Every structure is written in C-alpha cells, then in structure tokens.
C-alpha cells in the first residue's frame, strides 16, 4: 500500500503530501475520486444552466422508450410505444391537460395533414416520462437537487458536530456536560424518527426544509469523534508549546489543533453526504421533501413506481443507476480517504 519514498531530501514531506501519495497508489480510490469529480462537474454545469436547463420541456411523445431498447420491447408495450408523430406544439407546462385529446383533434383539423410542426422525438437515449420530458435531462437535473441537498445538509451537520465537539473537548467542564447532555438526547431518539418528527412539525415542503431536517439531526456522530480528538490533542506538546508562546484559546483550537484533526472532518463529511442523499430520496418519496414541481432522484422514484405498473421501467433504471454511480463512488472514495489519511487504522 505505502510506496517507499525514493526522494532524497532534507525536508520531510507533510502529512497531506504523504496521504496524497498513499491515495494515488489506491486504484479504487482514484477511480471513485474521478467519478465523484465528474459528477460534481455535472452538477456545476446544471447550476450554471448550461446543461439540462430545459428539462421541463416536452420534447418527446409520452413514455417514449429509450432508443437502445426500442427493438427489445415485447407484447403490449410495443404497440403502446409505436412512434407516432404528434402535430400540436409542445406545451411548456407539465400538468396533465384534460382536453389534450380534443385539442389534438382540433389541431389536426386546422393544420393540413403532413405539415409537421416541431415533431416530437421518439429516440431519446433514456426515453421520456409521462409528460414527454427527456428522462436523461431529468436525471441530470435530479442529480443536481439530490447532490446539492446532500452536500448542504452534510455540511451543516459536520459544522455543527465539529464546532460543538471541539468546544466540548477543549473546554471540558460545564460546556462539556451540556454538550454531552444534548448529544445523549439526540442520540437516544432513532435518527429516522427524529427526521420524521421534525418533518411533521415543520410541515413545509421544500428543499430548504430537507437540508434543515437532515442538518440538525445528523451531527451526533461527528460531535463524538471531534470531542474525542480534541480531548486527545489538548494536552499534546505542540499545543502546550503554543500556549507557552501566548496563543489564545481560539488560536490553539482552530489554528493549531484543527489541521491535525481535519481528516476526521473530511471523512465524516463524505459519510454524511452519502447518508443525506439516501435520506433525501426517502423523504421526497414520502412527500416530505422536494416538492412535486422540482425534480430529485426521490421524486423520480415516486413517479417511477407508477410508471412501472404500466411497464415503463426506464425512469426507475435511470434514477437508480445515476444514484448508485454517485453514491458508490463517494462511498469507495471515503474508504480510500480514510485509509490514506489515517494509515495507522486498519479496516
């Protein structure tokens, strides 16, 4: 695992440089890292609007199968999915139009046959959903929501846990007692129950609510680890030395100790991101999360459940594969990060 240094130098390498070298030799870690970075780049480009910004457009017929699966559909699905060119203009709304059928007839009557106006596609790579939206674009847009919610909630939880843990372990005494009490209270309520209870009282659906719920419930693990780290480091020689040259409490806590425990925070952050993405999917599915006019992997799975009953499996596949790729990548990356940053621990 650990490649022997061939560099002959007087300056010893820093902890991060060593970790980076260990990480580079871990092939699984590197590939998962690349996967995660690519996914994040995708999220960034949807954020900037250069990708999947028109996911709500009706670009295809309803429930068009993926282009690669067109031939492989048997039975009743095949007849339902025969490509037909619809003549009316695509509507930008995503609601079910109650007079769509009549409207279509009226359009046919008005327009001379054969004149195709903006014909709807039938050969999208991942097919289309009930409202003719491109499932691939939807999955990418859903990735943006799910990953951002996961990152934001994890960031909030990690920050809460780290600050509380640092203060608790550093100062001890009454601060420690109080924080420990808070930890015990939150820890004794199973996570999912606390999440549901807060969802019930907030009673506001929305992306921010999900972040808030997951952020305020997820901090306990980080708190415990950080408290332990600060207890351990508080009496180390380098901290005493810093004290001797007159460094303030805050300076010792956040300038001297923090860099030495930051690997714990990093690992906790990526663990929490995975957990929060999974929780977002479930919350959105239950109707307590991302509202119906948004899209996330959770809302896609909700729709996919109904789609599946009529044999339309591609939305389920698309959301599942996208989520697995990102979450697997991040989980494997976390394992590798932990190995690289904390080589003493054997997993």
């Amino acid at each position, binding site marked *: 695992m650990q490649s022997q240094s061939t560099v002959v130098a007087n300056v010893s390498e820093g902890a991060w440089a060593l970790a980076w070298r260990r990480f580079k030799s871990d092939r699984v870690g590197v590939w998962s890292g690349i996967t995660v970075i690519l996914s994040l780049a995708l999220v960034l480009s949807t954020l900037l609007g250069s990708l999947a910004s028109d996911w709500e457009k009706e670009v295809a017929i309803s429930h068009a199968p993926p282009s690669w699966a067109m031939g492989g559909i048997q039975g009743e699905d095949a007849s339902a999915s025969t490509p037909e060119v619809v003549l009316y203009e695509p509507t930008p709304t995503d609601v079910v139009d109650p007079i769509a059928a009549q409207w279509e007839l009226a359009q046919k009557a008005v327009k001379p046959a054969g004149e195709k106006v903006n014909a709807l596609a039938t050969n999208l790579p991942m097919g289309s959903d009930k409202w003719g939206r491109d499932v691939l674009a939807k999955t990418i847009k859903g990735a943006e929501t799910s990953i951002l919610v996961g990152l934001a909630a994890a960031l909030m939880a990690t920050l809460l846990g780290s600050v509380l843990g640092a203060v608790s372990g550093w100062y001890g005494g009454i601060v420690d007692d109080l924080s420990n009490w808070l930890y015990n209270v939150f820890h004794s309520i199973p996570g999912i129950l606390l999440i*549901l209870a807060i969802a*019930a009282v907030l009673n506001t659906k929305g992306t921010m609510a999900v972040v808030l719920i997951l952020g305020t419930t997820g901090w306990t693990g980080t708190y415990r680890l950080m408290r332990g780290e600060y207890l351990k480091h508080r009496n180390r020689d380098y901290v005493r030395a810093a004290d001797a040259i007159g460094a303030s409490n805050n300076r010792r806590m956040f300038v001297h100790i923090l860099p030495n425990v930051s690997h714990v925070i990093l690992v906790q952050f990526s663990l929490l991101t995975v957990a929060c993405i999974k929780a977002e999917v479930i919350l959105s599915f239950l*109707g307590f999360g991302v509202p119906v006019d948004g899209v996330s992997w959770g809302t896609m799975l909700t729709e996919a459940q109904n789609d*599946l009953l009529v044999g339309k499996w591609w939305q389920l596949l698309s959301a599942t594969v996208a989520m697995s790729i990102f979450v*697997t990548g991040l989980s494997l990356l976390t394992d590798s990060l932990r190995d690289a940053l904390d080589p003493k621990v054997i997993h």
Partner: protein
Amino acid sequence: MSAYILRRIWQMIPTMAGVILLVFFLFNWIGGDPAYVLAGLFSNQEQIDSIRAELGLDQPLVVQLWIFVKQVATFDFGNSWTTGESVADIFATRLPASLTLMAPLLVIETLVALVLAVGLAWVRGSSIDRGTMVVFTALMSVSILVFIILGQYVLAYRLGWFPVQGWSDDYWKNISTYAPLPILLGLLVSIAPNTRLFRSFVLDEVDQDYVRTARAKGLSEPRVMFVHVLRNALIPVITFVISNLPGLLLGAFLLERFFGIPGVGREIILAVERSDFPVIKAVTVYVAIATMIFNLIGDVLYRLTDPRVQLR
C-alpha cells in the same frame, strides 16, 4: 454490577428530561398552534378557543409542559387527532403486525450476515473478499426504495409468487403468505451493511493470541473460525443487535407502507402525513426511552459475556 445499573438508570433521568423538553419544544413551539391544525380550514375563533382550552393551550407554557410530563408518566397521550382512537390503543393494535414482520427478519438477517462475515473474514484479503465488499458497497448505494419497488413489481405483480400486498388477522396466514416477500426484501437491504459491520468485528479477533494458540494446537481452520473466533466476535454482535431493537419498530416503515401491513411504522408515516401530533409525540418519547433501556441491557450483556470489559 447492581451499583453500575443503578447509576446508569440515574443518569438516564437528565437525558429523559431532555427528550421530553425537545419533543415539547418541537411540537408546541416550532409546530405552531395545534388548534389551527385541529380546527381545520373552516373554523371560527370560538371553535379554536374551545380546542385550545381542551388541550390546555391557553395555560402558561410551564403548565403545558407539566401536562406533557404527566402524559408521559401515565402513558396517556389522549386520542389521535384524526381517528379519535386512543394513542395507547393504536400502539397495542399495531405492534403485533410489526413484530410478525420484524422478528423473523431480525433473526434471519443476523444469522446470514454472521455466517457471511465469518466466511469473508476467513478468506480476508482475497479477491473474493474484496470483490464481495465492492459489490456490497454498490448494493448499499441503491436506495431501499428501488429494492422494494422492483421486488414488489417483479416477484409479486409480474411473477405472482407472492401477494402484491395485504394482511389478515391470522398469524399463520400472515407469516406464510403476506410476510415472506417483505422479509426477503428487508433481508436484501440489510445484508450488506450488517455483513460489513460483523466482518469488522470478526477481523478484530482473528489476530488475537488465542487464535494462534488454537491453530498451534492443530485445530482445523473451520473449527478455529466458527467456534473460537465466532464465539468472541459474537459479543459486539449481540450488543449491536440488542441496542438496535427499538429502532427495528421503525426500520420497517417503508416495507409496511408498500405492502399495506398495519404496523407501527406505517402508523407513524400516516401520523406525519396527517399532522397527528399526539401519535408522533408518544412514539418519539417511548422509542427514546426504549432505546436507552436497550442500550443499557446491551452494555450489561457485554459485561457478562466479556469479563475483560470494566463497567464504571
């Protein structure tokens, strides 16, 4: 030992008080005025006032807190806001269904994960071990929703091997007809994380001196792994299983919802959907108490099974 247990119970009191405070704070402050939730859309001030009086909401906050504490102590949370059923009744009637589902699931998943864990630890570092771990990581990244949706669609709806959903009053009919598919899916979801955890417990043991001694005595490798190592690795496993028992009640809420099983988990989801505060409050407080008690039982068992552990 008894001194330890007493002290632990004594230490539970502040935590308990904290849970009560937290739940009270959540539902009476952040949750807004429940009278408006209860009175519904078409209500006048009079109705709201009478509901407030009935719930004690016109009292000062301290008095309201006292009412809540009394509710917790007497196990009397009043009636559900939506169905009018008493909260205690709701749990008494929903518990059997949850247990019918979760008890077999717990036993099977623990045994299967344990055997897999010892097996993987046996071939640790090999390509089988590493490959399985990667597959498990991938499995864990698939949302539990996908397992349930696909399982229900393929195995029940398409192939017809199991009923799509349903529940009866007869235990044997439930366990033989309705429970198998949810149990199978629950197993699929839990096997990966449990095996990973248990494998790490086993790996903590395989390098111990007593293992080397057992090998030096000439014992066969299966005997070393499945008798000597397993017996010691069981200690953290037991603690883990015991302290997670209360969470089991909730763990199945998605299974119960999809398969129409009238258990506690489904009741909680319904309560959250209907803003049925008494039910949620009761569940939160009692599950927290149960968690604390089971944690204590887990620790005590740890002490009893491993004399090296000193409880202070």
